[in-house]
């Protein structure tokens, strides 16, 4: 797998992990504080694992890839950048769409000829089972809520943009929706920069510090 592909995966998981962590302390109830914080933690753990593979190809380290690039250099899909920490229905809509899309690409990676990539995909897939269960439980509860349905409609073009063209048909089948024009990876929303400012603030304040 080449470095941009690895970075796309890693950046998606890092930025989404960051967004999910914004619910820590303010989720609708205590169980969800715990759940979203835990999901954020595992997403960021997956990001680190992908960054470590990319870092070997690029002769750097995982932290540099996560924190020392400019916002424009991140390869995450616009879906994960959106700030939703005041809107639970939208958050669950993204959670469901992202986890469904992520499963599709991970299934493809399970068959990678690169044994390290396939092994990591296998490990991540098993951990993500719990994210999917959580998303499905919530989607079941919110299925008929207008706010949730509206959010799924709004985010659908973004969800398609998580996957490469050839995998999008599988996502359409999984969520029973028609393919529309996707919001493609490569362009960023305005919401990425404020996230980046906050995420890299400590690292930028004392370059090269270790603790």
């Amino acid at each position, binding site marked *: 797998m080449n470095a941009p592909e690895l970075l796309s995966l890693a950046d998606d998981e890092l930025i989404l992990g960051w967004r999910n962590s914004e619910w820590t302390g303010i989720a609708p109830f205590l*169980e969800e504080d*715990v*759940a979203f*914080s*835990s*999901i954020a*933690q*595992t*997403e*960021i*753990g*997956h990001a*680190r*694992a992908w960054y470590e593979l990319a870092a070997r190809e690029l002769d750097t380290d995982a932290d540099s890839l996560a924190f020392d690039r400019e916002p424009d250099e991140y390869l995450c899909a616009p879906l994960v950048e959106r700030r939703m920490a005041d809107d639970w229905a939208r958050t669950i809509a993204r959670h469901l769409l992202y986890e469904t899309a992520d499963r599709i690409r991970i299934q493809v990676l399970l068959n990678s000829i690169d*044994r*390290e990539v396939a*092994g*990591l995909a*296998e*490990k*991540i897939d*098993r*951990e993500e*089972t*719990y994210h999917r*269960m*959580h998303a*499905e*439980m919530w989607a079941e509860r919110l299925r008929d809520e207008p706010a949730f349905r509206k959010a799924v409609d709004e985010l659908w073009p973004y969800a398609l943009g998580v996957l490469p063209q050839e995998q999008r048909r599988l996502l359409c089948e999984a969520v029973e929706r028609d393919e529309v024009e996707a919001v493609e990876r490569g362009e960023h929303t305005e919401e990425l920069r404020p996230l980046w400012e906050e995420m890299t603030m400590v690292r930028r304040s004392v370059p090269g510090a270790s603790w």
Partner: protein
Amino acid sequence: MVTAERVWEALAEIPDPEIPVLSLVDLGVVRDVEVDGERVHVGFTPTFLGCPALEVMRDQMVERIRELGAEPDVEVLSEGWSSDWITEEGHRKLRDSGFAPPSGRAPATLVQIQTGTHPCPYCGSTDTRLDNLFGPTPCRSIRYCSACRQPFEQFKIL
């Protein structure tokens, strides 16, 4: 010269940083030990990728092997850890400390988690329900026992 058996014994004395009733060997994260002269190779697979205990575990293994007078080489394997690898002894220790061991074989399904038999580690009742898929660390869920009215931590099936 150090033997593989001696290394296994030493690693079995290292407590898991987050669930200290278990040793790293009980948890099944140490997959193999090979001794080649002064060098000791350990194949190791952490439970969850986001687990912050990974580095602590690795450092402790390195330290213990050095104490045995050997040169450690701890390799993190790409193969994924499974809760099926927690030993029988590990299951017993978990139960004794009020912590429900994984109650099933991987892979986990939602139906299994919601409807399977999950005995309470305190009173043994199977009248328990899932309270939260997620818990204080990535490897735990929270269940509630309706018989003794006690929430408890359930090791996830992975």
